[in-house]
C-alpha cells in the first residue's frame, strides 16, 4: 500500500528579550546555574508575575510577518502539572485567547515549486527550567535560569506531507523570527525547539490516522531524522496489523530512534484556567500599526527584489537573503563598488569561505561590508586583478588596513601602461626564440606561456588583459 504522512509542527521560539516574560531577571544564556532566577522565577510564596511588554511587540511582529490576525485581547492561563523544573507547579501560557491567530507561510520545495503551510495560532508562554541528571550521584539537579524565558509557541496546521517539507517550514520560521528580531535563533542554545505531530494514512484517504508527538527536537537534521523514523515506524506498525498508539515520544539522536516518554513526563489533564494574577492584555490598532510600520523587508520580498534590482539569479538571491545581516552586508558592499554580480560572487565564495573556515557569523566578519566594497571597487577600476584582490582581502582580514592602504603599501597596483609593460615583453620575446617560432608557426597556445612569463616578471601586477594585447601585437611584428 502507498502511505502518506501528515505532519504538523509546534515550534517553541525563545524570544530575544533582555529580561524574562514575567520577571526582571536576565535571560542571558550560559550563566552559572540558578544565578539568573529571581523570587518570581523560583516560585517563592507571595510573588506575582508582571508581563514584559516587549514580548507583545515581538509576538505581534511575528503575527504580522505571517499575515495572521492579532488577538487584540489576549488572556493568560495556568497549565497545571508537577515537575521539578516547573517551580510554580503550573506554566503561564495562553489557551483560549492567544496573541496570534491564523496566518500562513510559503515554503520552497526541492522541485522548485512553492507550498503554503497554514499556521493555526501562536501564543506566549514561559519556559521551564532544566533538570540536570548527570553529576549528582543518582540525584537530579535543577537549573532555573531558563525558567520564565519568554516563548512564542507557533502551531502549524497538519499541512506537511514529508520530513523535507517539515524541515523547510521549520527553516522558514527560523529565518522569519531572525529577520524580525523576534529571536536570536541560536538552535544550539535551545532558542528554537520543535514538537512534531506525525500520522500516516493510505494515500488518497482524507481522514487522519492516529498521531504521535515527538517532543523537543532542537536541530533541523534531527527533525528530519525523527520524522522519517516515525513515518517508517508507523508504517511497520500498521502493515503488521497493529494500531499506532497516541504517544508522546522523545527522539534519541544517538540511537536515531523515537521512544515513548515516561508517563511521569506527561500529564493527561492540565486543568487550564485563566491566570488570576494577570489581567487580559488589550492592545489597540494603533499599537499594531506602529509595529507594522517598523517591520523589516521579509525574506520572500527580499529575494524578489534582489533578482529584480540586481539581476541576481534566484539561487544567489536566496543565499544572500538567507540572513538579514548577510543581505545587508551584500547590499552595502554592492553599493560601494557598483557591481552587484561581482559582490554576490565575492560574498558567496571568498567571504563565506573565510567565515566558515573560522566558524564566524557574518556579524563577526573581520572584513566589513565597507572594506569589501572598497576592495571590489579596485577590481572594477582595474587597479588590481581579481587574483591580487584575494591577497588584499586576506591582508584586510588580518587587520593590515583598508584595500587602498594595503595596495599602496605593498605596491600592488596593476601595471597598466604600455610603456612599462613593453620593454618587459620585448625582453621575454628576445630570450625565447623557440617559442616565438612556434607561435608564428600558428601555435596560438604558446601565447599563454608569454603571458605567464610577463605576469611572473611583474609579480602579477600587470593587467592581464593589457599584457595579452601587447604580447600578441609584439609577436606579430
Amino acid at each position, binding site marked *: 500500500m502507498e502511505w502518506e504522512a501528515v505532519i504538523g509542527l509546534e515550534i517553541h521560539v525563545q524570544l530575544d528579550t533582555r529580561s524574562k516574560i514575567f520577571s526582571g531577571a536576565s535571560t542571558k544564556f550560559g550563566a552559572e546555574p540558578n544565578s539568573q532566577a529571581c523570587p518570581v522565577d523560583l516560585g517563592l510564596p*507571595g510573588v506575582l508575575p*508582571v508581563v514584559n511588554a516587549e514580548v507583545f511587540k515581538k509576538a505581534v511582529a511575528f503575527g504580522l510577518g505571517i499575515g495572521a490576525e492579532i488577538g487584540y485581547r489576549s488572556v493568560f492561563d495556568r497549565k497545571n502539572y508537577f515537575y521539578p523544573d516547573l517551580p510554580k507547579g503550573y506554566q503561564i501560557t495562553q489557551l483560549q485567547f492567544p496573541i496570534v491567530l491564523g496566518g500562513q507561510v510559503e515554503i520552497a520545495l526541492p522541485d522548485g515549486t512553492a507550498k503554503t503551510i497554514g499556521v493555526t495560532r501562536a501564543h506566549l508562554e514561559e519556559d521551564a527550567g532544566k533538570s540536570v541528571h548527570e553529576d549528582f550521584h543518582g540525584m537530579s539537579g535543577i537549573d532555573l535560569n531558563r525558567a520564565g524565558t519568554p516563548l512564542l509557541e507557533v502551531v502549524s496546521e497538519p499541512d506537511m506531507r514529508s520530513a523535507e517539507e517539515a524541515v523547510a517550514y521549520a527553516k522558514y520560521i527560523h529565518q522569519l523570527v531572525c529577520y524580525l528580531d523576534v529571536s536570536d535563533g541560536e538552535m544550539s542554545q535551545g532558542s528554537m525547539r520543535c514538537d512534531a505531530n506525525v500520522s500516516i494514512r493510505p494515500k488518497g484517504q482524507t481522514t487522519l490516522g492516529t498521531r504521535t508527538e515527538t517532543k523537543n527536537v532542537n536541530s533541523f537534521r534531527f527533525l528530519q531524522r525523527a520524522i522519517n523514523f516515525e513515518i517508517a515506524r508507523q508504517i511497520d506498525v500498521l502493515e503488521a496489523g497493529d494500531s499506532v498508539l497516541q504517544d508522546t515520544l522523545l527522539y534519541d539522536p544517538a540511537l536515531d530512534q523515537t521512544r515513548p516518554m515516561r508517563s511521569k513526563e506527561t500529564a493527561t489533564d492540565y486543568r487550564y484556567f485563566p491566570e*488570576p494574577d494577570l489581567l487580559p492584555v488589550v492592545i489597540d490598532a494603533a499599537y499594531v500599526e506602529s509595529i507594522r510600520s517598523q517591520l523589516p523587508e521579509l525574506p520572500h520580498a527580499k529575494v524578489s527584489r534582489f533578482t529584480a534590482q540586481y539581476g541576481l539569479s534566484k539561487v544567489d538571491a536566496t543565499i544572500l537573503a538567507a540572513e538579514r545581516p548577510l543581505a545587508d552586508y551584500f547590499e552595502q558592499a554592492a553599493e560601494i563598488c557598483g557591481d552587484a554580480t561581482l559582490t554576490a560572487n565575492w560574498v558567496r565564495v571568498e567571504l563565506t569561505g573565510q567565515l566558515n573556515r573560522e566558524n564566524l557569523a557574518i556579524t563577526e566578519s573581520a572584513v566589513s561590508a565597507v572594506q569589501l566594497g572598497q576592495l571590489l571597487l579596485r577590481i572594477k577600476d582595474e587597479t588590481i586583478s581579481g587574483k591580487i584582490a584575494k591577497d588584499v582581502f586576506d591582508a584586510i582580514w588580518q587587520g593590515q588596513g583598508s584595500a587602498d592602504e594595503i595596495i599602496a603599501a605593498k605596491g600592488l597596483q596593476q601595471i597598466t601602461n604600455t610603456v612599462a609593460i613593453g620593454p618587459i615583453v620585448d625582453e621575454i620575446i628576445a630570450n625565447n626564440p623557440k617559442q616565438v617560432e612556434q607561435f608564428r608557426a600558428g601555435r596560438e597556445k604558446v601565447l599563454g606561456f608569454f603571458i605567464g612569463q610577463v605576469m611572473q616578471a611583474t609579480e602579477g601586477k600587470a593587467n592581464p588583459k593589457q599584457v595579452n594585447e601587447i604580447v600578441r601585437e609584439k609577436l606579430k611584428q
Partner: protein
Amino acid sequence: MHTKSITELLAALQGGEFSAHELTSHFLDRIRSLDPHYNSFITLLEEDALQAAFRSDQRRAKGEAPLLSGIPIVHKDIFCTQGIRTTCGSRMLHDFIAPYDATVVEKLNQAGVIVLGKSNMDEFAMGSSNETSHYGNVHNPWDLERVPGGSSGGSAVAVAARLCAAATGTDTGGSIRQPASLCGITGLKPTYGRISRWGMVAYASSLDQAGSLTRSAEDAALMLSVMAGHDPRDSTSIAAHVPHYTAELDSEVKGLRIGLCREYFEDGLDASVAACVQEGIAELEKLGATISEVSLANIKHAIPAYYVIAPAECSANLSRFDGVRYGYRCDDPDSLEDLYKRSRSEGFGREVKRRIMVGTFALSAGYYDAYYRKAQQIRRLIKNDFSSAFDSVDILVGPTAPAPAFKIGEKSEDQIAMYLQDIFTIACNLAGLPAASIPVGFVDGLPVGMQLIGNYLDEATILRVAHQFQLQTDWHGRVPATAA
C-alpha cells in the same frame, strides 16, 4: 497606654508623654503575660521591635516622624517579611524565610511602624475559626473557650486584647470582617486591587485582599492611607487616586442613602444578632441617613460559587509547595512521586488538602464548565446585583457573621456549618467590593459586628459612616475582661 487609639498614641509620642521604646516594651510585657491565654502570635519579635522603637525615638528627636512613627503593630503571618520567617499558619512553611518584604510590610515600615510579631492564622488563610492553624487554636478574649473567627484570628485577638495598636490581615471570603465581628473590633477589607498583593502568600488570587484590624474606623483610615496605592509589582492593583481618608471622616452622614439587603435578614441569621444590627441601623437613621431595602437576588449562590473559585485557584497556588526548593520536605523520599506525595500530605493540614482536592476536581476536564465556568457566571451576576443596588444607595448595611463566636471544636467537624460563617461576607469578595465590620453590640457578653459595604474604591464612605457611628457609640471601646 494600650487603650489609646493610634491618633492618641501619635499625639502622646509627639508630646513626649512616653517614648516608642516605652510603648513597645509595654505591649511586649502585655504579650508575654497575656498571650499564653490567646496564642495569637506565631512569631514574636521582641529584640527587633525594641531596636526599631529605639531608632524610631532617635528619628523623632531629629524631627523625622512619618505618619505612623512608633506605632506597634502586628502582621498576619501571611505577609512575607525579609529575614523573618513567614509560616502562613502551616507546617509546610515552618522554616520559610522570604528574601523580600511584602509591599504592605514595606509601606508600613516606611511609615514608621514597629512590628511586634507575626500573628496566628488559619493555615493558608483557609478557615473561619483559626482552628486549622498548625500553630494551635487562638482563643477569643471575650470567652477563652470560643474561637476568634478566621482566618485573621491572631490579628483580631491581638487588637481586641490590646496587645498591639493595630494589625494587618487578609480577607478572601470574610477573613478580616468575620474575626473583627467575633472579637469586637473594626475590620476593613478594601476594594480588590486597592492594596498590593505582592509578598502576600496567595490563597485565591482573584479574591485575596489585604486590609486592617483596628480599634476604630479612625485607626483604619490611618492604616489604609499607608497601605493603599498602585504597585507595579502587582498587575491586579488599581492605579487610582488614594483619597485623604482621615480628612473625610468628619463629614456628616445626613442624607446618606443606606440600603438594607433583604436577603441578609432572611435565613441563617441569629435573631439576637439581627436585633443588634437593627439597633445599629436605627442609630445611623438618627444621624440623618435614609434607609431603603434592596435585593441582591443572586447572593444565595455566593457560597457555592466561592467554594468552587477559591479552591480552584488555591489548587494551583499551592502547587509550588512541592518539597523541591523550599518548605517542608518528607524524610528519605524514594522517588520523585513519593517526594511530592509525602511532602504535601505531611506538610498540609486537612482543610488545605480538602480545598486542593475540591479545586483540582472542579478544574478537571469534563467538569470545568459545570463548576468553574458556572461559578464565574454566578460571580458576574452577583457583581451586577451590587451594581444595580449602588444605583440607588450609597452604602449597604447588614450583619457580618450569622452569630456570635462559637465554641472551639463546635463546628470543626461540620464543614458546611463552618462555611456558612461567611455567608454575608463572601459576596463582597466575589464582587471585589470594599466592606468593613464594626462593633454594634453584645449578645450574652459576646461582641456582634455590623457590616458596611461600599461601592468600588469608596472606602472613604465606609470609614466615614463607621467613624460617625463610633462617635455616637462605645461598643468599639469595650475591652474584654481577660485583657483588662
